[in-house]
């Protein structure tokens, strides 16, 4: 028997659990979608796996490995359903997580609320000890005091302890010693140390991340144990890998130590899928755009790769307000998220002008057209009234849409605005497109990227219907609609390499670097990373090691990330680091600050296995290709023009050689692609639809 050839991805979302099985030898794919089970998602996973194996006639032994991503961690934080967590902090600094950054995220809101720390003040303890910024010990760890605190904690229902000492990222000795004492005194309690969870400077985000890790650890532990055991009981002996927010996967053991790195793993899969389809069609600059029921998410590549950020937030007080969440300092694919989806509700703002979202009708009651009790006008209702959606083929016909209900929902808004119903619906469609385009435009501008050069990969239930509109507002001329957009995240998991990264803050001017010390640190990071990646089954020869250095001019507050080749560092490398920094800095800021010394701040080592070879993946629906429209319907593409009779196609009936000029509608069960006038569409590699503006090159 040949080596097992099936890769299995399992993505647990808030509503659905998606599964994708890919045979890397034949490229054949099988998918399964079922409702996520609550409150424990693990039974749903096991049911889905069994269903998929049965339908695709696969044996458990054919599975090479399983990749799993879950919203469980994110939800635990949002719903604040983690365990009672205590913090051990350097004496005098237990309030760092409550003092925060001293700012307000909304200047005009006098009734502002800030996110409460996950460890309440009475469970945050002062531990006498002190390490200085350069790593020297200023005050020895008071072990007796620490033991007294542990004795006190025994009387509390504390299940997790976070340790965050000042400057522990430069010298972890005290955190390690404290960890040992806590392990001994409080057996069974999960312990997270800041130098391991989030080894970077800035005590507020580091402590916040460490507490969050501790807070979810027992929950993640129990959950992962159940999934692992369940898979084994289904006869799957293949290794289970866990999807990380950084776009890599890792072992269950490593994810149990760092469950906070699982936050937002689903969207990471979506972004990876976008990059995969872009590459397949020869596009390096990709805007992965996913629009679902309540939110739209987007990720951009830079020089062909997704941008990884180490500053993010979770569990926002105001979901779409930057700064209102708990800060996290873990590697994460950088995402834009805005409150725009099919369920977003149209209303009048304080100036009496129309606005869309961020309030959403969600999936219950859902848009008015669902006929499930929703009465407010939503984006989906607008799309229906404009002719973009087929009332009899929404979700493949599973959800019949009620045009009358959609009209009724729009009646009041259109009367208040003194505009015809269809004009109002068109306005709502255009407004939500403009909101999404604006978010992407500003995000690109903040990073100095020219968004017009990008290719959009549109996914999500509502993405393909809005793709031309959003792309138009961005000046984008190419759109890829990948097949099976409904399970994009799960498919993306399969493109992720096994990878883990470690960071150490070691701040030094380049001309004062202690190379001995530095090489020692890097070797340590590499060793830790290799251990995890090898444990996930990657052969030593297949491992690649990458180094990124965060550098800045002395005195600056932000660093520029500079990729650097991993090597034993010697004197000659210092000039090279300076050159690489200057090249990167010039690309970012346009000019250099000559004469100002440069310093390195963070050293990040990424250890990864090879990228899985999934380029031959084909989604074969097994239907006869006719390439002919299944019908025609009037569709509105401009505010002041009559609807246009537009041909409607079924995606599964299109052959690899199909193409057509817009306008056109291409329906499939998971979504509807709208090809606007001025655009044309064709079937491209891998079963993708490629939409191009007619004046676009190539």
């Amino acid at each position, binding site marked *: 028997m040949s080596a097992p050839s099936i890769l299995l991805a399992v993505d647990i979302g808030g509503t659905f659990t998606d599964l994708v099985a890919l045979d890397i030898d034949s490229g054949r794919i099988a998918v399964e979608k079922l409702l996520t089970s609550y409150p424990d998602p693990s039974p749903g996973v096991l049911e889905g796996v069994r269903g998929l194996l049965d339908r695709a006639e696969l044996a458990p032994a054919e599975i090479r490995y399983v990749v799993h991503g879950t919203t469980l961690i994110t939800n635990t934080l949002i719903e604040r359903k983690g365990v009672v967590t205590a913090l051990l902090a350097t004496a005098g600094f237990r309030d760092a997580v409550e003092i925060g950054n001293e700012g307000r995220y909304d200047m005009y809101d006098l009734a502002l609320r800030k996110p409460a720390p996950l460890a309440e003040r009475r469970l945050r303890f002062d531990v006498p000890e002190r390490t200085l910024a350069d790593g020297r010990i200023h005050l020895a760890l008071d072990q007796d005091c620490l033991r007294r605190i542990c004795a006190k904690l025994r009387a509390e229902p504390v299940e997790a302890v976070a340790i965050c000492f000042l400057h522990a990222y430069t010298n972890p000795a005290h955190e390690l010693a404290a960890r040992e004492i806590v392990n001994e005194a409080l057996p069974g309690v999960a312990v997270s140390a800041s130098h391991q969870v989030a080894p970077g400077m800035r005590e507020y985000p580091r402590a916040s991340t460490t507490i969050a890790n501790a807070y979810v650890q027992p929950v993640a532990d129990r959950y992962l144990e159940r999934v692992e055991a369940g898979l084994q009981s289904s006869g799957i002996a293949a290794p289970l890998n866990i999807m990380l927010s950084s776009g890599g996967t890792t072992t269950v053991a490593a994810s149990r130590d760092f469950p906070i790195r699982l936050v937002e793993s689903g969207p990471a899969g979506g972004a990876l899928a976008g990059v995969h389809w872009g590459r397949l069609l020869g596009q390096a600059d990709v805007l992965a755009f996913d629009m679902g029921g309540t939110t739209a998410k987007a990720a951009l590549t830079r020089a062909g790769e997704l941008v990884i950020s180490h500053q993010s937030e979770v569990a926002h007080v105001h979901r779409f307000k930057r700064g209102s969440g708990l800060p996290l300092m873990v590697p994460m694919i950088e995402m834009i998220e805005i409150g725009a989806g099919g369920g977003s509700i149209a209303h009048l703002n304080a100036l009496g*002008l129309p606005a869309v979202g961020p309030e959403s009708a969600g999936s219950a009651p859902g848009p008015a057209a669902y006929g499930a009790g929703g009465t407010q006008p939503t984006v989906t209702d607008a799309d229906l009234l404009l002719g973009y959606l087929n009332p009899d083929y929404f979700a493949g016909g599973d959800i019949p849409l009620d045009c009358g209900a959609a009209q009724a929902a729009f009646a009041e808004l259109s009367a208040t605005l003194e505009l015809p119903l269809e004009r109002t619906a068109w306005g709502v469609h255009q407004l939500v497109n403009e909101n999404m385009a604006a978010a992407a435009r500003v995000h690109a501008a903040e990073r100095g990227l020219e968004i017009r050069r990008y290719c959009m990969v549109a996914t999500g239930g509502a993405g393909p219907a809005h793709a031309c509109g959003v792309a138009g507002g961005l000046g984008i001329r190419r759109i890829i609609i990948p097949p099976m957009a409904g399970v994009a995240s799960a498919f993306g998991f399969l493109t992720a390499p096994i990878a883990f990264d470690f960071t150490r803050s070691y701040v030094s001017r380049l001309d004062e670097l202690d190379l001995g010390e530095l090489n020692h640190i890097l070797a340590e990071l590499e060793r830790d990373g290799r251990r995890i990646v090898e444990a996930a089954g990657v052969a030593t020869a297949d491992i690649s090691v990458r180094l990124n250095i965060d550098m800045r001019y002395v005195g600056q507050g932000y660093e520029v990330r500079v990729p650097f080749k991993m090597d034993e560092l010697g004197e000659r490398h210092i000039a090279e680091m300076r050159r690489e920094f200057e090249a990167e800095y010039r690309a970012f800021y346009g000019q250099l600050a000559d004469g100002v010394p440069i310093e390195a701040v963070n050293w990040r080592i990424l250890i990864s296995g090879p990228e899985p070879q999934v380029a031959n993946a084909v989604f074969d629906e097994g239907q006869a290709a006719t390439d002919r429209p299944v019908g025609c319907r009037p569709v509105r593409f401009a505010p002041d023009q009559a609807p246009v009779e537009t041909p409607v196609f079924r995606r599964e009936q299109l052959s690899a050689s199909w193409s057509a000029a817009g306008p056109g509608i291409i329906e499939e069960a998971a979504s509807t692609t709208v090809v606007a006038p001025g655009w044309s569409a064709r079937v491209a590699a891998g079963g993708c639809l490629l939409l191009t503006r007619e004046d676009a090159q190539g």
Partner: protein
Amino acid sequence: MIDPITLEVIWSRLISVVDEQAAALIHSSFTTVVREAGDLSAGVFDREGNMIAQSVTGTPGHINTMAHCVRNFVVPNYPIDSLDPGDTLITNDPWEASGHLFDLTIVSPVFYRGRGVAWFASTCHAVDIGGATMGGDARSLYEEGLAIPLMKLFKGGQANQQLFDIIRANVRVPDQVIGDIYAQEVGNQVGARKLIEMLEEYELADIEAVSAQILDRTEAAVRDAIRGLPDGIYHNTISIDGFDEPLTIACEIAVQGDTLRVDYAGSSPQVDRGINVVLNYTHAYTTYTLMAALVPGIPNNEGAFRPIEVRAPAGSILNCTRPAPVSARHLIGHFVSQPLLTALSEVVPEQVIANGSAGLWNTMMDGMDANGREFAYVFFSAGGMGAAHDRDGLSATAFPSGITGVPVEAIETAAPLLMHRRELRVDSGGPGQNRGGLGQVMELEIITGAPANHSCMYDRTGNPAQGLLGGGHGAAGEVRLSDGSQPHPKSHYVLRPGQRVMLKLPGGGGYGAPFERDPQRVLHDVRQGYITVDAAERDYGVVIQAEPTTIDKEATARLRRESRK
């Protein structure tokens, strides 16, 4: 007449255009004060100089002063039709722009099809502007640095080289200052390009009609809110520490129909230290405070300013006259929010908050580090905010300023300082039915083995934040050395090795009578260590017994009953 949907679509685009302008500026800026603290503003203006939209970054002191500067200073002196494509103007006039020489306001006209259609402007805090000192020590404007009258920075795309040379010759870090000037110009040009793309896409000749409607709608919404207030005169007066002696800020709000007038008559006269405030800056923090209290969901543009008039007597601390020193004008300017909110509490008690720490605590240390290199380090810290009708005040949070603080680890990495503690200051929140936010306590030491200079800019050491509607005042601020001595809170002294300085930042005022506070919330505060057992009994009439920490219900009832007699 543009229909409301098209109007909203175009307006959303305008907001995204100014956000792109700000992003380009921040992106190309060299200085941390712009990049990390977001100390800048960016906006788009119509032909006549009316501010239509502003970026989401920025502080009120920059945004609203910039709006005034473009409309009332730039346009009257350089009407758009008198300019050519590629022209850009600059000024840092404190009286016409943002109140001190550090802020450079740079304004560029936009031409489309041969006609001036709009302006883009930004205001950024320069790292240095020359002059003798940083802080409030100057005795006149002339000591505070280089003044740049309104003039062309670029003419037809060509740099005004003489002006650049003058700036270069006058500032301590010319590369950074000039780099940021170019960044501002880059931002304006990006804004202009994106605006023209928008005009082409929507087939518009200009933005006059859009501007008129946006401003009119905004104005109408603000007038509606004012009309909702009963006609009348509302006033309040507060005392603040001042430089050497206390100052008074008196405000009177007159509401009549749909107009509102604020008059600061009765406020202290200007002083010969750099803490004087120009009227433009007073106006900025006044309109900001009123909008946050009365119409928080309404966009901030010229239309919002129309129904509001702001006056202060010439020669007063809030409307100083040339050549008064103004460098640290924010120290006083931030306080106008305080009497305004208290005066409004008479009519909209649920929309305001009690007084808080208000002024940022600005700490500067300089000296020689262990390697003999000069160091200078500045950081800002915030005390507590006042409580509201339905919630406690925020602890250690800046208001009305929009800045963010700096982590201890960043401070200790950049400067030879050792922070011994930085924690919430117990019992500093003003007691009330809702408690004021807590201040914080910091303890600092210099670790170079050599003395260092510590410049203090601390307020509310003598005048704590008052409570509202029966709430008690927050704790006053305090500066104390380990030998027990107390340095002047607005001057500088030498911090010796081995000596520690303790900064106790002020707390916010309480809201409502403290004896009305739910005893369970008092118990919660004791358990979490926000207040002590003694304070619970003394300030709230709640008797707490220890082990386990619970409320002594009988004793509490007795104490609270007696207090009503």
